[in-house]
């Protein structure tokens, strides 16, 4: 590398030295300079996670910095991805945070839409869960097939994006209610 740098110096020296004798070459641009040392922001917490997109199961590290910025990178210790991530995995931080602020598209409150209404209304968790529970009971009771211990009037979708424990509990709840229209994205 020394040689190449010197030949470069020589080249520019030769071209300009003759013209501008009054001023020697300022080689600032070419000679290596040391960088100002500014350490990375101090990390407050690091948690391991598994990517929420495809099913390769890549490990990732969620770093939350002092200023609240969340960054997510591949977990270098993880044997499957060895620190690598695809663009989706890397963009995971934006699910929570956009440009340092909460992602404005996230749902942050329970919302209710009355029949034939044109808009959402904010409701409390309590109200929502109580209302859903009573709707579920009413539907189940009115469509109960006693001989088979099931309801055909209540259906459940979803689960591929839930954790195993959540899937298990959802399965348990649905079966206990007698739901047989029970499906999720593995089917489609």
């Amino acid at each position, binding site marked *: 590398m020394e040689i190449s740098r010197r030949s470069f110096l020589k080249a520019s020296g030769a071209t300009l030295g003759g013209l501008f004798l009054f001023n020697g070459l300022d080689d600032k641009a070419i000679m290596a300079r040391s960088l100002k040392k500014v350490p990375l922001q101090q990390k407050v917490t690091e948690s391991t996670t598994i990517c929420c997109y495809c099913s390769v*199961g890549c490990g990732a590290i969620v770093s939350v910095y002092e200023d609240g910025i969340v960054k997510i990178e591949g977990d270098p210790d993880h044997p499957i991805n060895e620190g690598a991530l695809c663009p989706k995995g890397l963009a995971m931080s934006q699910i929570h945070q956009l440009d340092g602020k*909460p992602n404005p598209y996230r749902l942050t409150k329970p919302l209710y839409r009355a029949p034939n209404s044109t808009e959402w209304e904010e409701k409390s968790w309590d109200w929502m869960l109580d209302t859903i529970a009573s709707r579920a009971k009413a539907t189940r009771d009115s469509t109960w097939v006693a001989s088979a*211990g099931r309801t055909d*009037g209540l259906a459940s979708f979803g689960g591929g994006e839930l954790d195993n424990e959540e899937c298990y*509990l959802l399965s348990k709840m649905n079966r206990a209610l007698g739901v047989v*229209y029970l499906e999720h994205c593995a089917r489609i």
Partner: protein
Amino acid sequence: MTNHWIDLRNSDCVFIIGSNAAENHPISFKWITQAKERGAKLISVDPRFTRTSSKADIYAPMRSGTDIAFIGGMINYVINDIEQNPANYNMEYITQYTNAALIIKSDFEFNNGLFGEIEQKEFNGAYTAASKSTWGYAGGNAPTADLTLKDPNCVFQLMKKHYSRYDAETVSKITGTPKEDFLRVCQAYAETGKKGKAGTICYAMGATQHTYGVQNIRGYAILQLLLANMGVAGGGINALRGTSNVQGSTDMCLLEHILPGYLNVPVEGDADLDSYLRRSAKHPASTVTPVGLAGDTSANWWQNARKYIVSLLKAWYGDAATAENEFGFHWLPKKKPGVNNTHIGLIEAIGTGIIKGLWVWGQNPAAGGPNANGAREALAKLDWMVSVDIWENETAIFWKRPGVDPASIKTEVFMLPACCSYEKEGSISNSGRWAQWRYKAVEPAGEAMPDLEIIADLMARIKKLYEADASAPGREGILNLTWDYEHVTADQIAREVNGYDLATGKLMASFAALKDDGTTSSGNWLYCNQYTEEAGNKCAARNPVDSHPQKIGLYSGWSWCWPVNRRIIYNRASVDLNGNPYDVQHPVVSWDSQGAKWVGDVPDGGWAPINVADAGAKVLPFIMKGEGVARIWGPGLAEGPLPEVYEPWESPLANNIMSGQKNNPCAFIGKWMNEQGTPDKYPYVCTTYRCTEHWQTGIMTRNLPWLNELMPDMYAEMDEELAEQKGINNGDKVVVSSARGEVNAVAVVTKRFKPLTVNGQTIHQIGLPWHWGYAGMKTGDSANRLTPHVGDANTTIPEYKTFLCSVRRVD
């Protein structure tokens, strides 16, 4: 996946068909690239030249929906090669570990595309019971084997006869694949039939989303068994699953036909546990013992199912589950036989008013399901709907989607904010069956709650309502349900899933110790062993050292995988009759004769190798099958024991080139807003797929600007010839239409699609990603507005991958 992601590096030939691994599972290419560095070949078969194809040694285009012709042709090639060069194949494996040598009933017949007689049902056809009975083994539970494979009624000969019709010319005529390309694929992949060589088939929805999707996979299985690629490192049939926990949600059986751990769902008429298990063929009576093989015993592991269902019932109903009440078996709902409760059937049932209430947990059927226009219309028939998601998705706002008047929609809608994956704690299972724990890193957004807490709270409230209402029907099961989840944690549930010894209160060590007398519980027997007294929560294990003696990349100390941390399943087929590995460089397990034990991966059962074990204990390798050997011949499926080529529901051809039976006779044909298109109006083959930059319906990616930047708009890919005919320039706005709807897209005119010559006819294909919809930051049309409401004969998975369309430029 029978194997796992890292194991791809051990392969000598990676055959990717019906998958676009480089785009949809980018990290898989970490391991595929390493295999290639070692000299492995990469084959990509796809209607479209993809980023996967760009790295392939051999790329072969094919008409979407003709996989069975392609694979059948490969099977034909391999059978002929086996007969000519048996030394190039593992004949011991073929004869001893598969049912190739077993004799089939003499009245088996295959005629003009059909395996017997069909009777027509409401939504689909079905073979008569009489016809199905001809598919079985001669000799019933003790079929005989002809190790010479010469008996004209042995599986090998029947298969040979069946696939002799799939010669390279005919295959090329059907698939549109140039014959040379097809033969290059055959030749390269057949080389993995050698002892010590391994080939892996990686597939995904490109294979399954057809009216004969299961038979596509059956084709892969036959090919892999003929090439002795099952159970070995670098081999296997690897479903590259698309959702982070679709494996776990399947294991937990959020599906209409199975209970946690793949136990069958009870149906009306299951009088008791025993009859239920008999009907499910998960009973000692379903054991089949072949005669004439070196192995003389079939483990038929499923005969243990009684232990698993009883342990499940104990987990769910606790002390209320007793031997007297069959452990609460009758509190489980029983399906009505013949009713299709799957996704498509569910939407039809909403449409016809059967279903009144629906809750949707992190799913988006209004964009992700087939025939989305129909699904959106159907949702308006519901009385109420709950959407639990981290975003406002298409399903949650179906009532205010473009073009509808919200005031006209009566459905009451509840939208609950859920936590994203790193705002909560829990485990997920990847495609390689590794269950991995993830931790909470940040506080939930706003009032968002983990689904776990929402479910726990909701059911507790429902339970209270039933406690208060003595007249409510069917309340026993609810009242007896164990639901002690006031301060529910993922850890608590993980323990429940693993299960307890109810006498001691200690966690169960493994499913081998589960009992059918009600003294053990396990929420999912397959996950029994994930959380033990000794090792704690194994899903959280982080030992980065590969402890396998030959370092084949198992990393058994990193997380935990089912069953019992076995990283490569069917691994007893990776060794010869003496327990010596076929591939000495990458042995999965091998028998240590000095120590009289297996070393390497957790073996498929600890029994000694067949030649080492005593007579009467020579256990055949495929322990999950009743007959102990792998099924080249598969009589359990709806449309027959061998895959046969049919045209998709919407085909550009007038007839099936191979037989008089044009479509799969057993396919499910929906009725809800399901018009069928014809080639005169819709002359082009349309297929849908995903791209690297977005995910599923896009709701998880279209709200992330970095990903929108990379792939901003809905697009339609097409070949240059078609574009020229239609006056479409690259980048133009186009409308793609099917009999069911229209979508707007940006034309991507590319050489990556090429017109194919099919039976002398030029076929153009158009490709659409299905990542867009009307909700979220970046919107666009959903490709599923075009897809048909038809499904596979066995699973009813929708035929997203092949239908007819037309295209025009928008000025």
